[in-house]
């Protein structure tokens, strides 16, 4: 009986510890969200979206309008390059090349490429697209972000297209459709919700990236959206403002951090809902 009691006590202690771990983990993570919310909402105002950066010594002036637009432009350009390439690449892996050995190699390399540190991608793009041209430029930033999303989208597309039942494709083949029409009209359609979610999650991932932009598009204090010159970006501005000794800059960094966090979480939630609704409906 003593042994049984001992086992029961161990059981209670161990399960309490597990619950405690969950409580610690969740508490920490909610504290972060709460602090971003508190500090962000405390400093947010319209000037953040309507004015361009100003010197920190002028109190009550300056915003990050140019950085918002620049970040949007970089993300958009990266998506325009990376999304079609990724979907096409994923198509090869799951359709034309599914029996070739090279597809398994590419698939495995993509899995590894997803985890390549983004700062390493930044240094690579610096060597290829910044150094030869002698100046930080927006295209380099967009290229770095595109390289980050390419393997993510390739892998999601491949997985999503693999989930489409073969009977569907065979039905279309039986009607005499060539493979490319089968892919466009049948496979893409069936996998669209999954691919869409993958694209949203990939965009959410690069919308908050800082390290690859540091050495590529860098930052600019001016309102300028010329992609051949340094393009202002929100995340690099956060990095520089938060490390500055000026209170109003630090406040703006918190406000910008709040906006970035909201955007990333929103994209993630929309992506999740899309796939959930599709599975249910």
């Amino acid at each position, binding site marked *: 009986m003593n042994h049984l009691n001992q086992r029961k006590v161990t059981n209670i202690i161990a399960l309490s510890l*597990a619950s405690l771990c969950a409580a*610690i*983990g969740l508490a920490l*993570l909610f504290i972060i969200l709460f602090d971003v919310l508190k500090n962000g909402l405390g400093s947010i105002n319209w000037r953040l979206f309507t004015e361009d950066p100003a010197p920190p010594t002028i109190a009550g002036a300056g915003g990050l309008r140019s950085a918002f637009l620049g970040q949007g432009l970089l993300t958009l350009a990266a998506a325009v390059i990376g999304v079609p390439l990724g979907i096409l690449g994923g198509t090869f892996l799951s359709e034309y090349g599914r029996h070739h050995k090279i597809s398994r190699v590419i698939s495995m390399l993509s899995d590894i490429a997803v985890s390549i540190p983004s700062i390493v991608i930044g240094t690579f793009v610096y060597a290829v697209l910044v150094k030869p041209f002698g100046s930080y430029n927006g295209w380099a930033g967009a290229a770095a972000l595109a390289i980050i999303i390419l393997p993510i989208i390739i892998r999601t597309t491949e997985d999503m297209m693999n989930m489409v039942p073969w009977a569907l494709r065979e039905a279309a083949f039986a009607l005499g459709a060539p493979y490319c029409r089968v892919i466009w009209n049948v496979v893409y359609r069936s996998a669209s919700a999954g691919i869409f979610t993958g694209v949203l999650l990939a965009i959410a991932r690069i919308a908050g990236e800082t390290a690859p932009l540091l*050495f590529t598009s860098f930052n600019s204090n001016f309102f300028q959206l010329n992609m051949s010159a340094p393009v202002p970006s929100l995340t690099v501005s956060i990095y520089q403002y*938060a490390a500055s000794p000026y209170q109003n800059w630090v406040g703006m960094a918190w406000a910008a951090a709040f906006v970035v966090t909201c955007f990333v979480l929103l994209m993630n*939630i929309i992506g999740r809902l899309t796939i959930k609704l599709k599975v249910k409906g």
Partner: protein
Amino acid sequence: MKTSKLPNVIFKLLTFGAAICVIVLIVGMLLTLLLESWPALRRFGFFDFLFGRNWNYANQIFGALRPLTGTIISTGLALVMAVPVALGTAVFLVELCPHKLRSGIGTAIELLAAIPSIIYGMWGLFVLAPMLEENFQPLIVGTLGKLPLMGPFFQSHYAGGVNLFTAAVILAIMIIPFIAGIARDAFNQVPPILKESSYGVGATHWETIAQVILPYTKTAVAGGVIIAMGRALGETMAVAYVIGNRHGGLDSIFSPYVTITSVMANEFNEAAGLQMSSLFTLALVLLIANFMVLSLAKYVLRSKFN
């Protein structure tokens, strides 16, 4: 028949070209980094660079030992702190959590893994660093710091809370949701009949978890931990904020230090010549380390399915 074949061939070539991009990019990345690192590698030699203690602009001597040590210690400490908490969280989610809360808490944890690292970094700098310095550091300095031999390693020489330990804590917080998510998915895969058999022979809830669920899922969990390690190795922004970037001897875990990524983030924009080449070599080392870690994870995970 010919008219319908041509578009198919073109489309096939397009998709092939896009897929090949991955190989081209990875090979291109390795070659470019190798080329850019060449001046530093030729000047110092690979192993002398890797184990060189100095990072000195004035004398133009650069070695990776300290950034490498910083990266390894911060990642190791982060794993030691994160793995138990993450596994506890996963056990709670799968075995203890009321059904109504399960998907809510699960989604919250997944969302927290999506928060950009710069946000963690800012929070680490403004909230975590002062908090640790005020509340946690004196506790450790007063206990472990008094030990013989190991003692100095737990003493505080610098104020500000910006140090190697804070960097490890922020890394741990960042990888907790990641490991917890993978472990939860693995725990959910355990066939109910295994658990029922365990209860059937009279095992307690904890005995079932420790002796049935954990052994059944250990490869998946190990794979997840290794992938998380890869993430921690290459994490930049969060670490760059709180590590302090001090090129000096490591005298205590409460001293500012450097990691591979923090050196790159802080010095790349102003570097030139041999220093630039050395930074590229750091990037190359990080890329290769990451490749090895991820390949290991793939190998561990694959051996489970064969």
